[in-house]
């Protein structure tokens, strides 16, 4: 072994040594619970009989997939995630583009935008539940001032999902704006000047330069928002408890109920594992797509 290799292996050992505490912590708080859940998902583990005595194999997975309510919750989660991410992206990108060309008072706009993001989702849910109260809420009051009939924001199966969507957009859209704005302001300025001389107007410059250059940032932003949206739980818990009926019964909330209301921890773990697999699948696809772009 020559000296160069010796130094390299010593460096590597030192690197492991330095990162060991953090790795151990990550292992304890992230990997361990994941594996524990996977282990639980193949056992008949309930909070009434909390033991791993009965190995059930894929039984929990089969019954989860056969459970119509779970499949329904997956569908409406997919719908929720799609709608929320799409609308937030459209609004977010639009606002980011506008803010990117703003010269003055940028910090003030930033400050206003970040306010909702700094709030805890539970607080957001509570505030909006008050705003949207059918008879006491300010929203219906304002509608009545404009002679519009009151809306049953959280009590109607047709409206409740859209209400949750709207509140989530209010809460999370600034996240999109901030990330996309950071991407926009990091774009090189020169190609735009070249394009102006080449004959590209605002729209063509956006279509042929901004969009392609922004793709990697857009994909990452969508990815992060998507993962967060799949996890949405607090808003539903505070505002509708999955109701009315199962109209807003998003997967995370459904799994919570399965585990801690029905006490079927094994089956809930299997459902969580299915959700995790779906998210991983989507993530790896988007990640690979992004890698091909750059």
């Amino acid at each position: 072994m020559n000296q160069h290799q010796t130094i390299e292996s010593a460096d590597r050992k030192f690197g492991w040594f330095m990162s060991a505490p953090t790795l151990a912590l990550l292992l304890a708080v992230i990997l361990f619970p994941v594996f524990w859940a996977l282990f639980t998902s193949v056992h008949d583990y309930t909070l009434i009989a909390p033991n791993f005595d009965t190995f059930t194999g894929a039984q929990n997975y089969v019954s989860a997939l056969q459970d119509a309510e779970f499949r329904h919750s997956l569908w409406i989660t997919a719908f929720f995630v799609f709608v929320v991410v799409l609308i937030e992206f459209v609004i977010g990108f639009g606002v980011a583009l506008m803010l990117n060309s703003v010269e003055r008072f940028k910090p003030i706009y930033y400050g206003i935008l970040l306010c909702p993001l700094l709030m805890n989702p539970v607080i957001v849910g509570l505030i909006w539940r008050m705003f949207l109260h059918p008879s006491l809420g300010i929203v219906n009051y304002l509608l009545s001032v404009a002679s519009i009939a009151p809306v049953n924001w959280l009590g109607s199966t047709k409206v409740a999902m859209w209400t949750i969507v709207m509140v989530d957009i209010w809460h999370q859209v600034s996240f999109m704006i901030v990330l996309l704005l950071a991407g926009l302001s990091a774009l090189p300025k020169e190609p735009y000047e070249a394009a102006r001389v080449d004959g590209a107007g605002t729209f063509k410059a956006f279509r042929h330069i901004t969009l392609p250059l922004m793709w990697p940032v857009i994909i990452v932003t969508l990815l992060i928002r998507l993962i967060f949206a799949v996890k949405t739980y607090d808003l539903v818990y505070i505002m509708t408890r999955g109701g009315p009926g199962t109209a807003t019964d998003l997967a995370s909330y459904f799994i919570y109920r399965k585990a801690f209301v029905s006490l079927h921890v094994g089956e809930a773990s299997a459902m969580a594992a299915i959700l995790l697999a779906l998210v991983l699948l989507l993530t790896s696809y988007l990640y690979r797509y992004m890698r091909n772009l750059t």
Partner: protein
Amino acid sequence: MASITLKDINKTYPNGVSAVRAVSLDIKDGEFMILLGPSGCGKSTTLRMIAGLESITSGDLMIGPNRVNDVDPAQRDIAIVFQNYALYPHMTVVDNLSFGLKLRGVEASEIAKRVKRTAEMLGIQPLFDRKPSQLSGGQRQRVALGRALVREPQAFLLDEPLSNLDATLRAAMRTELIKLHRNLGTTIVHVTHDQVEAMTMGERICIMKDGEIVQVGHPMDVYRNPVNTFVAGFLASPPMNLLGGRLEAVGDESVKVHSGSIAFTIPAAMAKGFISHAGKPVTLGLRPEDFYLTAESARHTAPVGVEVITTEVLGPEVILVASTGGENAAEIQVRMPRDFRASPGEKVMLHFDLSQIQIFDITTTRALPRVA
């Protein structure tokens, strides 16, 4: 092809900074014009105003017969090559070349033909499928040039296009640009702070300082007859030696100029322009290459005794750095033949060609008229 005319152009930024002041310049159809000056002199701003990337505060900009002050850059039919190339990073070389033509709705077959012709001219065909990040500096430069050429515009604007290249490549590209201009005959405005580029490439040089034009002319004219001490000190390397001195009348028609141990008597035939400044302090301008080791009868030379400070042996020539000695001794640089050798402290007798002397007014810094 078109001429470019700037009439009393001003550029003042919203914060009150005045970048370009009263610039008037006639660039002839097919001319290779150099805008030369130190950084911050307004030369790039002037170019960007011609391109339409910068608004014009006041004055008229004409391309051909048309006033284009408020015309969109795309409609001016000019192409620009940027200092950092400004290629589209996400597009391949061939897409970079054809993008401008596509935007203009040129037919695909015509685009392919023009791109091919341009790429052959610049030797960039093998790079067609690469992206800018996979190209070297020189290759990017060629692609940027190709992107401008393929448009076949009325004029090319080059904003320090060679400054990011290494010395060898820069010299090669300099020659290529000259050839290109000869073949195409298109008007070129080339911005640079490199006086070698200016001297070698330009048909005319426009020297700028602090947002104003100082002198416009053929490179050799500007070199031989700088209008003031700024131009004298800016052009050529080593630049003209500028020494503080004093003029004295000798009789009615000739003058004597003193600086340190230098004392030149300028014969009546050459002194006509200088006599008005007799008795006043002046700045003396002596080009490093106008010194000789022996008195030459063919020239009006005058002896200068100097003390060697150091010599720089460059190969084709030797730069002698010497002190003029005496009171107010000044340091001068002199070009010597390649076999010249001298040790520090040695006294050397040089002979200066009086017909090349420049004398500048000390307050206005402007050159006094020279009659040779």
